């Protein structure tokens, strides 16, 4: 028997299905859905809802990684945007709050982009600066307290429903469609991939690599800000210390599980979001199973490795070798 190289996306789909099946085994009501007050409830909806922040982060991150970069600051940007939104929420209308928070995200992204594209600092160090300082800025905005708010508009953003789906899920789907339309509906995606594949060659053939790099970091900042606003709206408050803490690693993980190479040059938006859902389905499964929380990280490590191994190009080679070896034996 020979296994052929899995087609693009097959590995992720398989992994998601297997994890959902395991979730079904540990919790028999996993796939149950019921409608209440115009919103669907159930574990699957919960996976989608809880997965939204990482899915939004991965939408920005996947473009940054496609240019060969990385953005470690997204968790801190989430905290800044959440703090901004929470402190404005009760005095201003929703459009103003959203505009301010997303504007802050845009500025953060612009800062990262300038460091990487203009000053040519290595992306991991350039974004580390904002990762360290950003949480301080968020605490400065909230003056070290946890700022709570009661504005029903902003609360709706985290807990409301659109056509039966929780608002965050609807927003994430909207952002996915918007991003896909912009980068795949035009040559933009190709230019981003070209920048990541070989920046110098792209530059020489007339691609504005500097603009591309600036644009992807700005988009990443905006996506992170949106994730931060949703996270704040969800808990009706902004916690500058813990909002989005270590989510940058989950976002990078989601992108890589989605088959995007960290060296840049190619990307898939849908698979990155699938990666985010795989991570969340796993987290929810561990919670539902009732194992001690100490085991979470262990299970996560094993699942991540398993998903990676399935994708590995060498595994199909190995199975070929095994098949040959077996056929030699009488």
């Amino acid at each position: 028997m020979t296994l052929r190289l899995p087609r693009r996306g097959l590995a992720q789909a398989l992994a998601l299905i297997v994890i959902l099946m395991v979730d079904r085994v540990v919790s028999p009501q996993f796939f149950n859905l019921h409608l209440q007050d115009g919103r669907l409830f159930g574990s699957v909806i919960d996976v989608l809802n809880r997965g939204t922040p990482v899915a939004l982060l991965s939408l920005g991150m996947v473009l940054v990684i496609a240019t060969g970069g990385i953005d470690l600051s997204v968790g801190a940007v989430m905290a800044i945007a959440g703090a901004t939104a929470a402190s404005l929420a009760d005095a201003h209308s929703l459009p103003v709050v959203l505009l301010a928070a997303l504007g802050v995200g845009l500025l953060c992204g612009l800062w990262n982009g300038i460091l990487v594209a203009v000053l040519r600092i290595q992306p991991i160090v350039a974004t580390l600066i904002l990762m360290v300082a950003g949480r301080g800025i968020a605490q400065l905005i909230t003056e070290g307290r946890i700022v709570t708010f009661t504005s029903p508009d902003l609360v709706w953003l985290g807990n409301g429903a659109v056509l039966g789906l929780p608002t965050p899920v609807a927003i994430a789907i909207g952002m996915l469609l918007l991003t896909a339309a912009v980068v795949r509906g035009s040559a933009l995606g190709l230019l981003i991939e070209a920048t990541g594949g070989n920046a110098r060659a792209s530059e020489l053939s007339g691609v504005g690599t500097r603009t591309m790099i600036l644009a992807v970091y700005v988009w990443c900042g905006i996506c992170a800000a949106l994730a931060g606003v949703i996270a704040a709206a969800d808990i009706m408050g902004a916690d500058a210390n813990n909002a989005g803490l270590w989510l940058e690693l989950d976002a990078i993980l989601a992108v890589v599980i989605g088959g995007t190479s960290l060296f840049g040059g190619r990307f898939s938006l849908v698979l990155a979001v699938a990666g985010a859902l795989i991570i969340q389905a796993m987290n929810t499964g561990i919670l539902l199973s009732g194992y001690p929380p100490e085991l979470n990280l262990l299970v996560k490590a094993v699942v991540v490795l398993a998903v990676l191994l399935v994708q590995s190009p060498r595994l199909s080679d190995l199975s070929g070798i095994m098949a040959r070896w077996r056929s030699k034996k009488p």
Partner: protein
Amino acid sequence: MKRLSPIAITALVLVAGFALCALQFPNIASTRVVANLLTDNAFLGIVATGMTFVIISGGIDLSVGSVIGFTTVFVALAIERWGIPPYLAFAMVLGLCALFGAAMGSIIHIFDLPPFIVTLAGMFLARGVSFLLSTESIPISAPIYSTVSDFAIRLPGGGRLTAIAIAMLVVLVAGAWLLHLTRFGANVYALGGSRATTALMGIPVGSMTVRIYMLSSVLAGLAGIVFSFYTAAGYSLSAVGVELDTIAAVVIGGTLLTGGQGSVIGTFLGVLIQGMIQTYINFDGTLSSWWTKIATGVLLFAFIGLQQGLIALSRRSAAKTARAHA
């Protein structure tokens, strides 16, 4: 003007920064502060030496912080609960770390997976195992711990060069020797330059990869032992986020994340720059917790910006001389 090497520039930045700090707080320029700087950053220096090898070979190791955490918990449990003699416990934990690094290196090589993610899984695994061992902080009261922390070489001016600072310096010198003067080190550079070419030259890429990650994990384990001496306790949440500090120190020291370029001396300078930022903030002492974070970011940016500016300047003047000669 001769083209300045990035290491010389980083050293220049360090000296300039130190001079500026000393202007504002004259007390910084004492052997006491400098010796404390070495002691406080001993574990960072050790783990950064291993990281330098990994990054030059074109990889990355995100698991080091968790390995430090695991080591402190394992050592504390082994000595305090299981009654294992300290030296045996150290040997056991270093052996486990070597196995762990070898496993990560093998997976990276055999399955051709990105090191970033394999070591990220390693980070979850090591942290998970240390949670499983114990979630509380375990104080270590073995006599060797007080002997080692009392030991110090007295420096003129009241500074104390502690045992763990000496350990870091020894590791740095040994690391510099291994990287710059042995065949192993040359192979590490070759691997970072191009894997395909390295394989075609007949260098065993697989065993090199395994050995590089083993080295990084063993040094992380050693850093964990040093960390347990530093805090005299084992705690599963210790050294969270240290992997990023380590990578930052290595990269500030002039090592390229794309591999093939870098040095252990540069890494040492990077560790000192990071340590100096912390020392400056501690000396200031008036900053609230959030201003501390912002100041750290601003200083990090100032150092990197200065370094980047000097490199661009020296490149430009080198190009000018080249044109003048032509």
